[in-house]
């Protein structure tokens, strides 16, 4: 009995010891997170303050909490239409990119044809040029065919970058599906269309998700082309934000609220595909 007590006390003493020591990795991790989250925290706090407070005092959190900034954005059409426009062309672009990339990626993963390897590499060369290079030709082209300031114009322009990326990602995922599954399905009597939708798509569903995510992200954050190709009707939120310098100066609070709302869609999408993202960054070749 006494033995047991002794061991118990020595055990608790032992257990207490490490708690006194500084956990090095936790400190590093804490600093890192602080470093990452500080700008976002600051943005969030700014969006909840009044302009006077932002400009005149230094506070870590709002003294008088206000949601007026958000209210402005959600009630003023010139603000919230920016989000609507952005979402319209981003979704259009994502759908077009994935739909176009699926058959292309299937062909690259399953067939050999003349110059297939060169063509496959060539796809990526489009991503080597900065979007600015294409701003001028797109602007002139779309103006002359009457596509200027439409959602589809921006969506198509972004396809130039997103289709190759989607093809690369999807090809990697499709390569992981053995060709024998295709053949077995044909032997079983599946037509190509039915096989593709009923058997093949479920197998590469995560790849489609990852490809869609990358298309969404590129299109959502791309500013230069979307701003060049639009003026009023299809003006994206990022462009709206850069044009808020009014006669009364900059409306800091509203701008910060717009920034917070711009982060939300990306964060949501990331949350849903977080488990596949590593494979996506390796273009499906893990």
């Amino acid at each position, binding site marked *: 009995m006494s033995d047991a007590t002794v061991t118990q006390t020595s055990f608790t003493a032992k257990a207490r010891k490490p708690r006194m020591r500084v956990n090095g990795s936790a400190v590093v991790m804490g600093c890192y997170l602080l470093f990452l989250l500080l700008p976002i925290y600051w943005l969030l706090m700014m969006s909840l303050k009044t302009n006077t407070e932002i400009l005149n005092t230094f506070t870590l959190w709002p003294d008088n909490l206000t949601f007026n900034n958000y209210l402005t954005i959600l009630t003023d059409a010139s603000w919230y239409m920016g989000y609507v426009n952005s979402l319209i062309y981003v979704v259009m672009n994502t759908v077009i990119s994935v739909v176009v990339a699926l058959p292309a990626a299937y062909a690259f993963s399953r067939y050999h044809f003349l110059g297939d390897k060169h063509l496959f590499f060539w796809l990526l060369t489009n991503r080597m040029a900065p979007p600015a290079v294409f701003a001028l030709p797109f602007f002139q082209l779309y103006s002359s065919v009457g596509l200027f300031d439409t959602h589809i114009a921006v969506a198509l322009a972004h396809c130039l970058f997103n289709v190759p990326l989607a093809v690369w990602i999807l090809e990697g995922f499709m390569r992981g599906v053995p060709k*024998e*599954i295709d053949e*077995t*399905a*044909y*032997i079983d009597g599946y037509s190509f269309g039915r096989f593709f939708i009923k*058997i093949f798509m*479920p*197998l590469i569903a995560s790849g489609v998700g990852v490809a869609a995510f990358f298309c969404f992200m590129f299109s959502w954050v791309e500013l230069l082309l979307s701003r060049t190709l639009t003026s009023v009707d299809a003006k994206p939120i990022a462009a709206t934000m850069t044009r808020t310098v009014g006669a009364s100066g900059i409306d800091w609070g509203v701008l910060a609220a717009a920034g917070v709302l711009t982060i939300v869609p990306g964060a949501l999408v990331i949350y849903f595909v977080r488990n596949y993202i590593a494979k996506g960054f390796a273009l499906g070749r893990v």
Partner: protein
Amino acid sequence: MTLILDGVSKQAGAETHIHPTTLTLEKGTMNVLLGPTSAGKTSLMRLMAGLDVPTTGRVIWEGADVTGMRVQDRRVAMVYQQFINYPSMTVYDNIASPLRLMGRSKAEIDHAVKSTAEMMQLSPMLDRKPLELSGGQQQRCALARALVKGAGLVLLDEPLANLDYKLREELRVEIPKIFEESGAIFVYATTEPEEALLLGGNTATLWEGRVTQFGPTPSVYRQPVDSTTARVFSDPPMNFLKVTKSGSVLHFGEGQQAPATDQLSALPDGRYIAGFRPNHLEIGRHTGQAVAFRTTLVVTELTGSETFVHLDHAGERWVGLVQGVHDLSLGAELEVFLDPAHVYVFAEDGALVAPAAYALAA
């Protein structure tokens, strides 16, 4: 229901995968394609299935030319070496999918799936996904899907190669039973001579894209038409040595000789190649006529009840399979014996001129 390959060949670029081949597979037969890796077993099978279109020749099924017909319309079934199922469907849906595509009624499908699953011992797993099953069960699921539609031609491409030893033994026994119940033409590709002998039926031996011999399995085994077939249909491969026949005596090179009796007596004098299977090599003298050879022991492999001995005989590598476990030291000289009744005699170009006496007697 017969499948006729009429002068079928397959070329991919400059490479020839299958040399022109003519084969007739009769209704309700088990046909084994036996050959080492990349001998053309899978290529030939893909031509039979219609997955590949032959470069030359025709494929005739039930009297109709089906060369170039879509796979979907061919009504064949195939099982791969890899366990190929539809991972997103349950086992039940996997087995049911070919029937659904044929437009069968729900009750009919249910009955067929349940009875096939019963036969393949899959009944308790019908609601699970294929990837949740063990390897053997996955392959049984693939087999069930191939069998359920009652195809006239069932192609099995090394279906047991990726399974572990025990499961392979189990399924190997089941396959002939399944075959008998189905009444279809079965084509079974394998690299193992032992498997061909177990399955019986007919065997086609393949070597570098050519069918070297096609006939009933036992007769292909006992009377191979040439040294290539004999090499393929023997595991480990057949051993060869040069011999000379003069008069009524067969000389084995180092003074050993045996009387050239029966068929051998009719042969003209000259050089020949003698072949014998590893299991006919003996360490002790068991018959008076046995010929002795001096060899050097290079490697021994124990299998438990038998020993493989790798021997060096005047620069040639021989493999012997002897009963029991022997305590032999590597590098030592070993005298081995061979009964002339077990010797096949081939011409120098490889064609069989006289089968071994034991093979004729059997």
